[in-house]
């Protein structure tokens, strides 16, 4: 008896749904082993995490607060990954969005009518995120410079720029030495609807639906898909690969920039330390677990936000490190990656060696 891996003709729908769910469960089981080794009760810990993230109205709004930036950056990353453009710079694009929003809200507000101040602030955030992603995109399409490295390096640069600003020239003179800018004028505040949960959620959901429609129902989306599958065939079909990649990556960066804009206008109302808690990196997990499907990103970001909020709760209640949420998140992709093998291949069992040769010849 011999085993063969045969490439499926079409992706298995059952596997596409099952793999992320099973991966999540496997990741919980593996983390339970770690918790057990460190002398914590895994069941009690998970119960506390779940309660802390979804157990009450207040808990759920905090989960939403963290889900919004994950959703926006996750959508940006998913779009980039669809083009096989490995944008791991969502963290920096988010930071640049926050910086640019702060610049408009603090320094341009006297010249902007109040009614359009907030849209102008958010537009500034999108623009900055797009520009920050656009540089690696142009370097990639014009000189073939590896984008994983450039996008990642620009994260560090963006975060250092924001620190330099709020520790230095932008520091609030009335802030008692607190590292952060002055608060924004109220016209630049993004409205909240429950607790700290804000209408950035609406942006996230609208963007998810819009992206799904564009990718699934429009000519442009079709072109992007072809480029993602094979740049050679896209070129053969007369599709402008470079232009489309740059446009998609500008959009990808704009989504992350908007995430940063929402964080500063809705949560902190100023630029300060702790704007991003690594959302741009978690976005990679969100996008991959959602299998790059924009609608799925919405739900996966809620789940991942729950892990972050639950992790904080467990730290307060049981003294376990909050980084536990990160451990579970980090572990999810391993079974995901192993499992996606089964969405593309299936195992063929061949009984006699003769049949195996025949099967091998036919494959």
């Amino acid at each position, binding site marked *: 008896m011999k085993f*063969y891996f045969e490439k499926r003709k079409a992706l298995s729908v059952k596997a596409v749904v099952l793999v992320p769910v099973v991966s999540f469960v496997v990741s919980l089981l593996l983390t339970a082993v770690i918790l057990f080794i460190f002398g914590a009760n895994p069941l009690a810990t998970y119960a506390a995490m779940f309660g802390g993230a979804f157990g009450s109205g207040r808990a759920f709004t905090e989960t939403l607060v963290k889900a919004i930036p994950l959703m926006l950056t996750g959508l940006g990353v998913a779009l980039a990954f669809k083009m096989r453009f490995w944008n791991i710079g969502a963290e920096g694009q988010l930071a640049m969005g926050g910086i640019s929003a702060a610049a408009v809200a603090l320094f341009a507000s006297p010249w902007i009518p109040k009614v359009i101040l907030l849209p102008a602030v958010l537009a500034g955030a999108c623009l900055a995120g797009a520009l920050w992603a656009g540089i690696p995109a142009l370097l990639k399409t014009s*000189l*073939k*410079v590896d984008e*994983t490295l450039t996008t990642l390096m620009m994260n*560090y640069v963006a975060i250092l720029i924001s620190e330099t600003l709020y520790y230095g020239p932008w520091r609030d003179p009335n802030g008692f030495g607190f590292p952060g800018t002055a608060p924004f004028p109220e016209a630049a505040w993004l409205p909240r609807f429950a607790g700290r949960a804000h209408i950035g959620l609406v942006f996230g959901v609208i963007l998810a639906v819009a992206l799904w429609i564009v990718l699934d129902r429009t000519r442009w989306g079709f072109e992007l898909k072809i480029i993602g599958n094979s740049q050679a065939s896209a070129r053969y079909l007369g599709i402008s690969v470079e232009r489309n990649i740059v446009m998609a990556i500008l959009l990808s960066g704009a989504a992350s920039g908007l995430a940063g804009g929402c964080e500063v206008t809705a949560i902190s109302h100023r630029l300060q330390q702790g704007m991003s808690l690594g959302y741009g990196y978690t976005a990679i997990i969100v996008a991959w677990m959602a299998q790059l499907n924009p609608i799925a990103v919405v739900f996966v970001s809620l789940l991942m936000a729950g892990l972050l909020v639950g992790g904080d709760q467990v730290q307060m209640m049981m003294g376990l*490190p909050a*980084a536990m949420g990160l*451990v579970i998140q980090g572990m999810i992709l391993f079974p995901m*990656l192993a499992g996606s093998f089964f969405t593309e291949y299936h195992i063929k069992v061949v009984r006699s060696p003769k049949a195996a040769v025949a099967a091998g010849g036919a494959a």
Partner: protein
Amino acid sequence: MIGLISSILTITLRAGTSLVYATIGEIFTERGGILNLGLEGIMLMGAVTSFAVSYYTHSLPLALLAAVLVGAALSAIHAFLTITMRANQVVSGLSITLFGSGFASFLGQRLGPATNNHRLVGLVGAKFESFRIPVLSDIPIVQSIVSQDILTWGIYLLIPLAWFYLYRTRAGLSLRAVGENPQTADAMGVDVFRLKYAYTISGGMLVALGGAHLSLSYTPGWSENITGGRGWIVIALVIFSMWNPARAIWGALLFGGINAVQFRLQASGTNIPAGFLNMLPYIMTIVVLVLITWWEALSKKVGAPAALGQAYMREDK
């Protein structure tokens, strides 16, 4: 003046040491056709475990052993996912980094003694000390090279050995064949899968040693994000070295030098904001990457193993 140069060279070599270990480790992995973007996570895990072991056992060999084992375990996951399960190498490497940095941070908040609230931050463990060699340690410049600890001395040996292994031995030839053209290597009787596993795992061990150097020698102790992106800079250094271990020293000296100059300028109290100085290594990485890519395109010289990043399937026709 010579004193200043000498002190900058000392810090440069010290700062460059972890980069050399990781660069050579990744060169071996990539020569086998496997791109491992998990370096940042592996270095962090190497740093946290080796520091914890040095704190509790005061044994530096055991601390290094712990780092090497952790590096082997993490890169074995990457090897299994990308070689056996044929997963996307970029995403698998990213997951190693995400998991490694999350888990390292968890361990840093949990492995410490109860008296320190279970944290490792702020503790002092055993660390490597620089040698003092009679006469040589008194000559400027020479002193910067010889008055170093055993890990920095290790790179003086590792660089020529790695070069010799890759270019002058049969095993090195097989490795290069696997990265260039696995089908041909397979036909030559090389066990492609076994070699890919072996070099991904041993490469990961060297990377973890680079991480251990940070917490046991360069900045002794544990702090969150102790690597500061070095794992990513190393990926650029591999490209910069054109996959040749002998050239690994130049990138390490360049980036170690940036660290040293940063260090000097900050110590002398310049009015350049610290933020701009801290940005230097990252901006330099981008600049170096652009220049080397541009130069490669102009000279039509490609150093990258031809089959880098591709899953190898025996049944593929």
